[in-house]
């Protein structure tokens, strides 16, 4: 009896310790990222003779950063619990194709207006649920489960969309996505709103505490009585829900959806996760890191376009940045064997 009590106390203690550690980690913040952003800004400001830092271009960068930020905010949560989510592009394509058919368009008779938003988010959440269950119940590594989900969702989007580019005829979506409030692009406002919600979850709720406990040391979290599987599934679902929203935004930005809408979104988001300082080994970094990561990656790419740097070099730079960022942020204590 007393042994059990002691174990209980130990477990309680380790939850607190894990939680405490987590809070420290979040508040460790983004000093390095701010410095990196400053360097990027200075280099390109000099390279473009100031055009880069004009108000117009800063607003351009902010509007371009909106969607990568949202996708990065989605992915980083899975990374924080020590998993990996590769399903981004397929899920976004699937949500975009289905939403494209439901919002007023030139292919189907549906015209459900803004109801498409919750439907797309629910659909994204469902894919997250499946990925989460595959990960926790079937005990599949998350990167395999989500890799499968990527291709399954991609295939489904082709079957449903039949390769057609579907024109969106409801002008309101595009007006909102490409619009601004007092000059500030709506996309960045949406990204900041999602950021705020996730920040509250991470810093102020039990869920957030558990997420970091699992990311820090899953074994310990399990021993401490945290329902690890349930938390993981919740995280995958939240991630999927955000993908659903990102799909609507990508679709309404160009007023068109096709089964390739999600293509090319994973790499910049993953780079942003790493550049922002979210450790790919889990447990370190939070929403603020994701936000800064996406901002840095977007600022870097916009700068390279303005400086007319050859596109070949641009993609090489992005690759090197990803490698460097992971090299700096990875927590080597957790890695026994590298495969």
């Amino acid at each position, binding site marked *: 009896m007393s042994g059990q009590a002691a174990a209980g106390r130990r477990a309680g203690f380790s939850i607190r310790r894990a939680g405490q550690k987590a809070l420290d980690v979040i508040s460790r913040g983004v000093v390095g990222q701010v410095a990196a952003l400053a360097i990027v800004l200075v280099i390109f400001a000099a390279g473009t003779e100031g055009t880069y830092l004009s108000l117009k271009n800063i607003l351009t960068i902010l509007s371009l950063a909106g969607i990568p930020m949202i996708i990065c905010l989605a992915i980083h949560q899975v990374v924080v619990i020590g998993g990996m989510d590769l399903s981004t592009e397929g899920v976004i394509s699937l949500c975009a194709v289905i939403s494209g058919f439901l919002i007023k368009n030139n292919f189907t008779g549906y015209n459900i207006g803004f109801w498409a938003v919750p439907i797309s988010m629910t659909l994204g959440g469902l894919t997250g649920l499946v990925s989460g269950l595959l990960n926790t119940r079937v005990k599949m590594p998350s990167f395999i489960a989500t890799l499968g989900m990527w291709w399954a969702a991609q295939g489904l989007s082709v079957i449903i969309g039949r390769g057609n580019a579907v024109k969106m005829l409801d002008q309101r979506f595009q007006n909102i996505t490409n619009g601004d409030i007092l000059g500030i692009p709506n996309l960045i406002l949406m990204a900041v709103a999602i950021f705020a919600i996730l920040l509250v979850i991470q810093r102020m709720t039990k869920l957030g505490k558990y997420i970091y406990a699992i990311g820090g040391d899953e074994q310990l979290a399990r021993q401490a009585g945290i329902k690890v599987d349930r938390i993981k599934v919740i995280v995958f679902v939240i991630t999927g829900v955000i993908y659903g929203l990102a799909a609507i935004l990508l679709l309404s930005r160009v007023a068109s959806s096709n089964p390739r809408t999600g293509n090319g979104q994973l790499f910049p988001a993953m780079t942003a996760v790493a550049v922002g300082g979210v450790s790919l080994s889990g447990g370190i970094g939070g929403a603020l890191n994701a936000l800064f990561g996406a901002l840095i990656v977007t600022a870097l790419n916009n700068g390279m*376009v303005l400086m007319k740097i050859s596109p070949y070099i641009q993609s090489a730079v992005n690759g090197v940045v990803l490698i460097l960022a992971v090299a700096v942020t990875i927590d080597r204590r957790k890695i026994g064997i590298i495969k």
Partner: protein
Amino acid sequence: MKRLTLLFCVAAILALAVVGSAYAQKGVFMGTAIRSLENPYHLVWSRGGQAYADSVGGIHVVQTCEGSSEKQLNDIKALIAKAGKNAVFCIDPNEAPNAVPIAKALEAAGVYYVTWWNKPDNIKAWNFPHWVAHIAFDGISTGEFTATELIKSMGGKGKIVAIQGMLANTTAIDRFQGLKNVLAKNPDVELVAQDTGEWDRNKAFDKMKSFLSANPDVGGVWCANDNMALGALEALRAAGLAGKVLVTGADGITEMLNAIDKGEAAATVLNDSFWQGGIGLSLAIAAKTGKINLKTTPKDHRQYYVQAIYINQDNIKKVIAEHVTGTPKYDWNDLYANYLRPMP
């Protein structure tokens, strides 16, 4: 229990496959090997192949490689294994080098085939007894035509930006060369920025936004395909410039045709993939049935460029009536229609 469920699933899938293939059909197998059905271009291609197969009563098999050269080769080998010599192929090789193993496999089986777009320059179709033809739409004249129309819309002077396709891609290089050829003849037009949109609409949107913040006075946007042109157009729309600054593309997808009709785009070309899908199979069948004799066919008819349909604001109504609201009528027996020039 779980293992039993899994076994059951596997058995069910196998059973389905067996039942599916048991629907034995008669006729020549007509393989259409293309990249994917995710894009309208290849989707329409497969429909063209189907239309030809239906017109002569063949079994049309669409194989998509989803960007994998390995899969493309294996799929083709699988159909040969099943059909033997009773097959023909119309192929869009995934990458240029992939045309070689595909040609070898088809030669070994004695199957006639036509390829499009990609093949290594030093491999010549006329050295292969069953390689009916290698054909491509001419990219250089495409780029020249759209660039000329764009500059015309700007009154012959001003600043333009260019959004290129996938950089290592022959089509992208050729179309951009066309633009450069025209720019050399128009000293009053300046190319102020260029970058790649990787054929993608959302990427082109991003690039155009960046271009606009550095060059707010841009007068025209040249894009290597319609998808990117439409992405750039939405970026222009967000800046209140749609219809004032025109875009050009290539491929002739319906949305682009509508944009030209609305006066927001200047020009595109239609690489008529419906015709491509049908005529490729028709050529291969003609060789198989002896209608054309490859031994006597001149080299300039074994490798050649065909001309795309040029579209600008003058003929847009006619093109929409023929290709969008109506289905074009094709003469599949006119084997060398649209012939432009030999491919060296």
